[in-house]
């Protein structure tokens, strides 16, 4: 099955929808109309492709890991989203949304960020297009990702700490939504993952499908027209995963999302509704959303994009969990065997490959290396001493 458009109410199976305050409903409807129109407009597509190539540096390469593969007994291919401008896959989505916002006449962007990668990407395109930019970031994340906070300041964005709840990504989303409720007429909410109310999960997926499309062709060239046995990616909200899954959903490749054990919405959650969507959600017996706990600020989220819940529920993708300790090992493993320091987020996917290498022996695994590790070096320096 290829990944398809959601239903009229924005559902992937039973997941998705548009659970937002009445104030935001017209804005979501406008956005859906604008995206549909732009996505079918060759002029918009050409413009976006131009920025993806000349500004973001696409296509990103596919790297075969010779030493790592020998070490693990698993043939590992990396889709190098870490080499994009701003250091992660996030630029694909924000270029699309910023161009769309400009087309809609909105001059201000608000965004939430966890590790800061989406915040940096949003601040970057705001600078590029001369837009005002405000980024909400959990106070805890501002501490552990101080470098990205400074990058956002350099790019001219305002960074506002989210002080409620767990003071991480979940709370940053709350603050961004509260901002949008108050500023909806002038502001576009540049949501950073395949989550939130319809049309975001679909729209953000479409902006990231370029990852899977490129990887499919690159794998075909490398594998004599074939596809890898497994396509693996880390999952917080799930945007890099859905982007690479999109290129292989209609093949026999197994799709594997890797969640942090402390933020495993698919693995440990039950269906719930928060941040505009129905999806798997970590919550207590009364429906209060639980706080996620992960070494990686970018995956520290108790929910997940609704299409991942759908793909899991129909068995098209499976979701594994890894621990912080396994992630720390994987972070070092890739650094030492391939000379690539990964972000902690994609290190989750590698941690799964490494842990389950017996099961994967002899197989070819495509891993979406969604970001580079520069932002995490300070944190790892403290952990590894």
């Amino acid at each position: 099955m290829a990944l398809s458009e959601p239903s009229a109410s924005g559902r992937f199976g039973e997941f998705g929808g548009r659970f937002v305050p009445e104030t935001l409903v017209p804005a979501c409807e406008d956005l859906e109309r604008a995206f549909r129109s732009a996505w079918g407009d060759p002029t918009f597509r050409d413009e976006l492709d131009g920025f993806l190539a000349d500004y973001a540096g696409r296509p990103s390469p596919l790297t075969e890991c010779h030493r790592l593969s020998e070490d693990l007994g698993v043939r590992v291919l990396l889709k190098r989203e870490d080499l994009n401008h701003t250091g992660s896959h996030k630029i694909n989505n924000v270029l699309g949304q910023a161009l769309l916002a400009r087309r809609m006449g909105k001059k201000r962007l608000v965004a939430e960020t966890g590790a800061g990668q989406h915040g940096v990407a949003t601040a970057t395109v705001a600078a590029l297009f001369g837009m005002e930019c405000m980024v909400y970031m959990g106070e805890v994340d501002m501490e552990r990702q101080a470098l990205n906070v400074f990058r956002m300041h350099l790019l001219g964005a305002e960074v506002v700490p989210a002080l409620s709840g767990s003071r991480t990504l979940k709370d940053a989303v709350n603050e961004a939504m509260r901002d949008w409720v108050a500023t909806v007429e002038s502001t576009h909410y540049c949501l950073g993952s395949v989550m939130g109310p319809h049309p975001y999960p679909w729209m953000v997926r479409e902006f990231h499908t370029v990852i899977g499309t490129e990887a499919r062709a690159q794998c075909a060239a490398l594998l004599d027209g074939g596809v890898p046995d497994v396509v693996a990616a880390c999952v917080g909200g799930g945007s890099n995963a859905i982007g690479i899954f999109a290129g292989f959903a209609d093949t026999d490749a197994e799709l594997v999302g890797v969640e942090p054990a402390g933020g495993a919405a698919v693995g440990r959650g039950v269906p719930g509704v928060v941040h505009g969507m129905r999806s798997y959600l970590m919550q207590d017996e009364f429906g209060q959303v639980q706080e996620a706990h992960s070494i990686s600020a970018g995956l520290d989220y108790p929910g997940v994009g609704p299409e991942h819940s759908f793909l899991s529920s129909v068995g098209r993708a499976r979701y594994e969990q890894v621990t912080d300790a396994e992630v720390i090992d994987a972070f070092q493993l890739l650094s030492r065997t391939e000379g690539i320091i990964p972000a902690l987020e994609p290190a989750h996917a590698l941690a799964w490959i490494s842990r389950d290498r017996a099961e994967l022996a002899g197989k070819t695994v495509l891993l979406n290396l969604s970001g580079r590790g520069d932002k995490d070096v300070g944190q790892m320096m403290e952990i590894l001493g």
Partner: protein
Amino acid sequence: MTPSGALDEGLAIPPAPGHHGELETALRAGRDRGRKLLVPYVTGGLGDEWVDIVRAVADAGADAIEIGVPFSDPVMDGPVIQAASEQALAGGATPVTILDRLRGIDAGVPLVVMTYYNVAFHAGHQRFASSLAAAGVSGAILPDLPLDEVGPWAVAADAADVETVMLAAPTAPDDRLPRIVARARGFVYAVGLLGVTGERDSLASSSLTIAARVKAVTDKPVLVGVGVSNAAQAVEISQVADGVVIGSALMRRVLEGEGPLGAGAFIAEIRAALDAG
């Protein structure tokens, strides 16, 4: 298989029942006597005195009372209600403990629960609606459940005769408002401004605009909430609307330590101003 073929439950919106429930009957009766309607909001489960605060605002002249059932992620709420919700949750409040206390409260006016949709969704629509009815709660406000998604909840709420209050936002286009008021039971909650709950220095002009727009398309009681902060603002907006919801201004006083006496006095002051016109 394609997702598009799945049941699209979000699109089916059952018509509201023709009869008036307890809440709407009481509010219509008040309005028909020439009274401006006053609905204070009290966060359930906050401290030991919250039930006494509910009784105090009832005695001070409330026409109905909103009981907040706190949720971990209240996206429509500003700092005051957020703080009240966090404190209540930290103190162990749950929907079950709050409804248990409401069951015996005998406030003398209808009670309306205000919470977020996941609390109802997680409990199960039927189970949550029945638990509200069993606790003597007349209505429910779910600010993150817009018209388009209200169907499955509305079926269960209607069956339990729990009146689902609908919100009308300043951003709603003209063709949406009639659909919202048609589905509203109890009253129509006109959102006074673009933004979250909280006090403002002056009444937003959008309050008057949305109140007039909603009044033009319904004879159901129309109350304005979000940003109505004091007696003067309540009087001003009630020139157009049938009444007001007062939340953050009351809960700020409660958080600052004012007990039932202070809360009652604040609501009595607004009551008196509304009665004086």
